[in-house]
């Protein structure tokens, strides 16, 4: 204790050292340039205010339709679109998951040999780089209008999403558990079954449910380019300026997505 008192008084001021750029002048110059660029960029955005005024009115009608949704007039179309969408969503998710699991395992660096890894990563990259709408347009051109093109689009998009995230989950597993299973003389399949599967299952279940509700929402979007489902119905309603029917469709989509969200929470809890 007496020791400490004898030392010179410790400094009372301390500032956190800069994390990224050490030189003060460089840090300030870069910050100033960034702000100037932001101002310049915003000033180049052209806004046609008269057009906005007109659009606002149209938007308001849309909102009114939303507030007074009409479920009845187009109910048959809505019902058929919904059934199509739900069928498309569910089948596409199941098919997508079945395809994603082997691809995801192959795309995990800690499980797959290099050639398999590269092929699987390439599949994932292709699937992820093509946006759903572009894929939908392609499949509609190939297989004609309707939910089959939608099914293919969503299944394809599911692979990119699920295989990538599954591969990442596998790469994040606790290696000690895998090492222990390997040390028993387990084969590769047994290793996957005993060390990897238990660790990634909760995440996989959560991702599948999440993808199910993404696919449902996407089914509404790709319907607009002809891939069937509720999106096609929505598109028709908007084209006919039937905003009350469109509002009804949007409300139904919101409710279904919320239901999916709620059930996925319950299922994920059961898996953890």
């Amino acid at each position, binding site marked *: 204790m007496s020791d400490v008192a004898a030392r010179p008084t410790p400094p009372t001021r301390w500032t956190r050292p800069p994390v990224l750029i050490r030189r003060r002048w460089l840090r300030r110059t870069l910050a100033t340039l960034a702000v100037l660029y932001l101002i310049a960029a915003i000033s180049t955005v052209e806004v046609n205010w008269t057009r906005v005024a007109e659009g606002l009115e149209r938007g308001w009608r849309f909102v009114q339709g939303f507030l007074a949704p009409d479920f009845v007039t187009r109910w048959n179309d809505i019902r058929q679109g919904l059934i199509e969408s739900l069928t498309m969503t569910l089948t596409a998710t199941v098919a997508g998951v079945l395809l994603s699991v082997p691809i995801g395992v192959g795309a995990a660096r800690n499980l797959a040999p290099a050639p398999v890894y590269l092929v699987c990563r390439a599949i994932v990259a292709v699937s992820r780089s093509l946006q759903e709408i572009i894929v939908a347009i392609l499949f509609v051109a190939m297989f004609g209008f309707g939910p089959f093109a939608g099914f293919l689009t969503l299944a394809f998009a599911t692979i990119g999403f699920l295989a990538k995230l599954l591969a990442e989950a596998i790469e994040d597993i*606790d290696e*000690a*558990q895998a*090492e*222990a*299973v*390997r*040390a*028993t*003389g*387990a*084969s590769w*399949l*047994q290793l996957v*079954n*005993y*060390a990897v599967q*238990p*660790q990634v*299952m909760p995440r996989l279940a959560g991702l599948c449910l999440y993808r199910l509700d993404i696919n449902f929402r996407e089914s509404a979007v790709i319907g607009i380019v002809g891939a069937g489902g509720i999106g096609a119905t929505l598109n028709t309603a908007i084209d006919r300026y039937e905003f009350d029917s469109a509002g009804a469709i949007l409300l139904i989509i919101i409710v279904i997505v919320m239901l999916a969200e709620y059930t996925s929470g319950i299922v994920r809890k059961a898996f953890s």
Partner: protein
Amino acid sequence: MPGSRNPAMLSVRNLVKTYRTGDRALDDVSFDVAAGQVVGLIGPSGAGKSSLIRCVNRLVEPSGGSVHLGELDITALSSAELRRARRRIGMIFQEYALVERLSVMENVLSGRLGYVPFWRSCTRRYPERDVAQAFALLERVGLAEHADKRADALSGGQRQRVGIARALEQDPELLLVDEPTASLDPKTSRQIMRLIVEVCAERRLPAIINIHDVVLARRFTERLIGLRAGRVVFDGPPDAIDESVLTTIYGDEDWTTMDGPANAVADGASGDGDDGDDGVAPVAAAT
């Protein structure tokens, strides 16, 4: 192999391990382990203890030298042969390394993975003999009533007992034990060490126990190998460990207080009073 159950003798010759980073973890390590012999492997962190026992079952691929289990040259095996060899070598891990989300029983049965086809392990339909043995082992380690609990529901000591049962479920001819007490309290550490040594004696199982706690190592093993910077710098009976040997293994330090704190803590916690070498009163504060 299945015919003769003569416990294998382990023979390590000129073992070298150089990691891709250029770190030489093991440098010309040679030693033999006789049937039924329990060997403690001590040394400072980074001395290569962990690499050494992992080179024995090739969880870490040796860069040179050879490892023989009985007649079998482990370093020369193809990957399929290596899997068959690994079933003969049970391993117990630091931090238990149980599959946390599986049940205790599944973890113990996973010791049979090298013996059963995939469909059996996948559907959890193990042969009756394996299941009976798993229950007997859980009984032996005192966890019979916990068979269907999830592994992550157990305490540290209980988990390590499951780890021991898993290793024994393999019907091993050799045990590799990596820091079995690393995250356990002093009392549980001793119980786990005692259990390991007992099961080894029951089965005349040779074991290599990698352990950083010299006091525990001295108490529970019949032979110690000291590793420093990847080289064997000591190989002899526990009583031969004195200050100069500790300095050789770990470097300069005041070793006179060595026995004190660890024993004092352990005795305070356990009170099972089986220590012959009761240390001085707590001196930790003095250092």
